[in-house]
């Protein structure tokens, strides 16, 4: 694990920051580097993308943390990658062509937070209806929803 992180820092220099809060390895990186870092880590044996999600830090700029979890089968360890994005249309490059599991995970992240994944093969809503207004997991989305509930039967 140590060698992989050293190699990562060697290849990407000060664009990546490695820390270990609560004994879990976290790598902070800029959005533009995500594809190259994930590809690099995959070549180093991180062969599972466990999860892609986001955290809305409303009030902070950039507003969102996009969080990736990878797993190394031989080292038996997880690795968390964090990318900060903001603006009116938060956009991150998609890693769906690196890991197939990113396809649905990024769709869910788009559905829930409105984060766009550039280069995703089919970026559409996955859990909410296609014509839904708003992105439910954003902090400024009220718990009761933006619109009144849709009718049970559509005419």
């Amino acid at each position, binding site marked *: 694990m140590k060698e992989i992180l050293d190699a990562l820092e060697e290849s990407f220099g000060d664009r990546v920051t490695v820390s270990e809060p609560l004994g*879990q390895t976290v790598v902070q990186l800029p959005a533009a580097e995500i594809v190259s870092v994930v590809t690099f880590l995959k070549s180093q044996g991180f062969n*599972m993308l466990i999860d892609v999600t986001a955290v*809305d830090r409303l009030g902070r700029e950039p507003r969102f943390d996009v969080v990736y*979890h990878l797993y190394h089968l031989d080292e038996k360890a997880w690795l968390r990658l964090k990318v900060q994005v903001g603006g009116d249309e938060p956009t991150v490059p998609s890693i769906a062509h690196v890991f197939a*599991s990113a396809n649905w995970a990024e769709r869910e992240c788009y559905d829930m937070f409105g984060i766009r994944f550039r280069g995703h093969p089919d970026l559409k*809503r996955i*859990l*909410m209806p296609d014509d839904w207004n708003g992105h439910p*997991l954003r902090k400024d989305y009220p718990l009761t929803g933006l619109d009144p509930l849709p009718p049970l039967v559509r005419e």
Partner: protein
Amino acid sequence: MADIETTIGQVDPETGLKPMVINLGPQHPATHGVLRVRVALDGEQIRACEPIIGYLHTGIEKNCEDLTFNQAITLTDRMDYLSPITNNFGYVLGVEKLLGVEVPKRCQYIRVMFAELSRIASHLVWLGTAAMDMGAMSPFFYTMQQREQILDLIEMSAGTRMNPSYFRVGGLLNDLPPGFEEKLRAFLDGFPHWLQEYYALLDRNPIWIERLKGTAPITAEKALDYGWTGPLLRACGIPRDLRKTNPYSSYEDFDFDVITETDGDVYARYHVRMREMKESLKIVRQAIDNLPEGEWHVPGWKIYPPNKQEIGRNMEALIYHFKLFTEGIRVPAGEVYSAVEGPKGEIGYFIVSDGSGKPYRVRVRGPSFYNIAALPTLVQDKMLADVVAAIGSIDIVLGEVDR
């Protein structure tokens, strides 16, 4: 794997016909809930397939942000409702990690015991329903009977059969009740016989073998690529079991084997789960035999509430009790990922706390969500009837896929 929208429009040059599109579900017994699968068919062969989910989305992750850390446990029950206890497990471990506490050994053993019991219960439901999908009705009645015994055990200690919320942050709802051990031992002694009965029902049944062997296979590389975990990944020959690779809650004290098969087809998945039940039984027996005496929750009143007698006698206990139930546990700010090996795979919780009594964000990595995403790859160019076998073998719970 073909894209369904383009496949629909393609005209076969020989026959001049377009593929027929049919919907499986969302309301169909073989989809194990409200899964909808759109398939484009050429005769009975599948040209393209698209699973559509979201019909059971209940906003659990959003609702967690509005509840205190202990209240949110009740929502985790309702995701994988066939094995609610393993869902509680990952969540409470995550919050305890943020708090920096470790529960006493007795509590850890009881947790392991219940997690393994609910693994058996979950596999029993899978076995019954998957066999019913293949047209074998009787295994369902057998497995439900044994599952009910496990639910009785859960009811005995947690008060409810289905959504027990038995694990609490810093401990359990309560200690094992009197008479529990005898009842558990009666189950442990009786179950191996029933396991043999299941094998007798299915293992030499020619229809069962014909339908399962070589159906919906996947290679280990593909399975890893799709983020498959749990019995499905182990059926491809990869011995990834978090109980062994990243032990939590004293799993390192227990002696059990990680079950793997190599074929990666439906038949291999069936065998992995069947043999896993036997291993779980071994773990439960070890846990009850070596159950340590002592406390079953963390000391002090800051995390685990004082008991009722104490509240009547002690003013300070009353204050702590009031604070815990109005404001919730104060969890230090931070982020944590905690994962446990559930019956369907890795159940992961990414919990963010901002230092208040409510979680800032709870992300649930449901194993079924990632497992079902690979369905199109499994059934590409196979027969329509294989879709049912494939869905059954993936063992999805839509409550967890949609959350």
